């Protein structure tokens, strides 16, 4: 028995030492979640334009080109439930918030992070943002789980020899999609269109409810909401399911029609965006992002916001 205990201790000791050393001495890993969270912790009082949403707004809108003090809190696979959680996390801080930008893309209303293939990201929001979803456990054990997960992230960075895993600018814009590295737009369009074809009706009704909560919050805060559908290349848009797309567009139009603090602009097939503006079929590169951000800025700086429906068939 003693021999067994001794062997088990000897076996686990290096792992335990490695874990402790890792937790104490490994530098705090820097990542997009932390950057965004720290920024909002410090500057949410001053922000005038807040950009929420998925990778579409994360890569497509660069706050540097917006006249107002803006921050891009969007992120890859971020869904409306997470957008709402981020917004409500700083409920009492949005003293200067004038505009909230929320993308309503082809898949937006039919997806929530917890039910998507990217559900593993829920833990990241819990770890780094402190956003807990209902499905997650709580209490001290959860804190230990969180600690392990953070350590796991650091461990992965060591393995992949990454100093950090930052893909965004200091204002939260995803700055890794360079014009020099373009993907095959035809191939990517097909895959992305299929990946974004969703049919979760529960998510749809929950997301509509969340949109209403966000609208009510914005009203109470004297803010307006700019809903927009981001531009995409024809290899993607031509393959979209018309039922899902029409349902998305008609739903947001109906919501916007009854609210005086909201507008909706559809840039999906905006012909101003050329092949050279796209990194892949549904994300802009830095050139396209500049063009799109300028367009958004022109909208935001107009005294009266009017809905625009561009080239949408």
């Amino acid at each position, binding site marked *: 028995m003693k021999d067994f205990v001794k062997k*088990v201790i000897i076996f686990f000791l290096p792992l335990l030492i490695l874990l402790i050393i890792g937790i104490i001495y490994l530098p705090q890993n820097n990542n997009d979640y932390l950057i965004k969270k720290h920024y909002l912790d410090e500057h949410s009082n001053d922000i005038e334009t807040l950009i929420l949403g998925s990778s579409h707004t994360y890569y497509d809108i660069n706050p540097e080109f917006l006249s107002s003090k803006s921050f891009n809190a969007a992120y890859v696979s971020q869904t409306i439930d997470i957008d709402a959680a981020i917004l409500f996390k700083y409920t009492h801080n949005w003293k200067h918030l004038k505009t909230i930008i929320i993308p309503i893309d082809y898949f937006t209303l039919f997806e929530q992070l917890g039910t998507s293939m990217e559900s593993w990201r*829920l833990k990241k929001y819990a770890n780094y943002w402190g956003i807990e979803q209902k499905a997650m456990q709580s209490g001290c054990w959860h804190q230990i789980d969180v600690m392990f997960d953070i350590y796991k992230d650091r461990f992965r960075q060591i393995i992949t020899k990454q100093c950090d895993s930052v893909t965004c600018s200091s204002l939260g814009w995803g700055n890794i999609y360079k014009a020099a590295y373009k993907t095959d737009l035809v191939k990517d369009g097909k895959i992305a269109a299929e990946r974004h074809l969703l049919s*979760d009706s529960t998510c749809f009704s929950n997301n509509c409810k969340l949109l209403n909560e966000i609208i009510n919050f914005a009203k109470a805060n004297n803010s307006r909401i700019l809903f927009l559908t981001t531009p995409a290349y024809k290899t993607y848009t031509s393959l979209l399911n018309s039922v899902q797309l029409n349902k998305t567009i008609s739903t947001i139009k109906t919501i916007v029609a009854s609210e005086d603090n909201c507008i909706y602009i559809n840039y999906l097939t905006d012909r101003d965006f050329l092949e050279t503006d796209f990194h892949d079929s549904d994300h802009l590169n830095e050139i396209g992002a500049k063009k799109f951000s300028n367009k958004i800025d022109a909208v935001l700086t107009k005294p009266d916001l009017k809905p625009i429906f561009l080239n949408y068939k």
Partner: protein
Amino acid sequence: MLFNSLQFAVFLLITFILYWFVANRSLNVQNGLLLLSSYFFYSCWDWRFVFLLIFSTLLDFFTALKMDKSDSSKSRKFWFWLSISINLGLLGVFKYFNFISTVFTSFLNAQNNYSEAHPPLLLQLILPIGISFYTFHGLSYVIDVYQNRIKPEKNFLNYAVFVAFFPLLVAGPIERATHLLPQIQRNRTFNQAIATNGLKQILWGLFKKMVIADNCAEIANYVFGNANSLSGSNHLVGAIAFTFQIYGDFSGYTDIAIGTAKLFGIELIRNFSFPYFSRSISEFWRRWHISLSTWFKDYLYIPLGGSKGTIWKKISNIIIIFLVSGFWHGANWTFIVWGLLNAIYILPSIIFKSNRRYLDIIANGKIIPTFKEFYSMILTFGLTVFAWIFFRSDNLTAAFCFIRGLFCNSLFSRPSIFPRSLILLIITFMLIEWFGREKEFAIAEMGGNWPKVARWLFYYSLIAAIFYWAGTPQLFIYFQF
């Protein structure tokens, strides 16, 4: 308290230390500790159901004693049927009442031509975790006592540990009194080789669950959740992902359970024996959820007549046993169809008397199988994948939609869901399983001839893999049964 949680690791460590260092002077104290820790473990799910567990234990313990003391066969029969009906009654109320009520009401409404459609009477009950497993423990004990296979246990503590032993309490393996009770009755001495083997089995179970099952679950959940908008090839990816998910999940759970029991000096029965290497469906069912298959064989199939009698008798027995097995899994038509489908798969081998073929492991003593063996294995695997579609689907409509979506032109298109790293992990996993297929579990004797450093490095690699590739934690699938 999930087996793959830190809570369980701490719970196991404390129980292990108390068991071998504090309670080791007396068997009753050791069993008392096991019982208390088992009830604590169960109460972590829902403390209210501990009372149901205690009631079920008391019922079977006392009815078995009453049967033993009965002078007449009539009285013996009375106590036997009392126990059976209360056990099945509890299972029926908690697990099947709403399903039966819905079916019955639909039938009545159809008879009335829906002129005055009535809603079904539904109970708002939470299904007690593991109820099917511990009820079957109790049933096997009562049946064995009734049939004089064993003498009733006189010590309540021993019997309560037999029912509630925490490694097998919530998802099996379904133990038999003839196998487990004698181990609980006798003094247990610590055996280092068995305990080390147990730790290895726990490690392998964690790898199966956290790396294979949880990662596959993400794909399967997505595909089954959005089936009607994905291509046929993606349906196939989803179905295969679920096939590996359920194996990694359930056999991983079982490995952790058996490994944990070994740490306490108790050997549980084997529940899996590399089922995806089977060459026929009959062989698959000798290797998948063995404790349930043998339970049904001993307590239902053989009493029904087994493979004796006319061909129609044999066919009806097979269909009954698979339908009941499907229904045991859950109150849903999907499980019944899954059971029926497996019955249809297995019937040709019963009719042509080839079901006892392939009793040994595939390519025994060889590195690679023959072409015929490989072909049979792939065919069996394909049939299994197809059957799992029913098991995974929420209802029959969803299952048939999934199948329709699977068998279309886009089946041969390139899937948009193609998780390369997961595919590599599954290939590595199956290779390890293949090379360890002649043992109790894949890594039982892996590295036995290697230098200690190499062996430990292998275990460290598994731990690192769990740490690095663990998917989003999912509840064990079989907990719902």
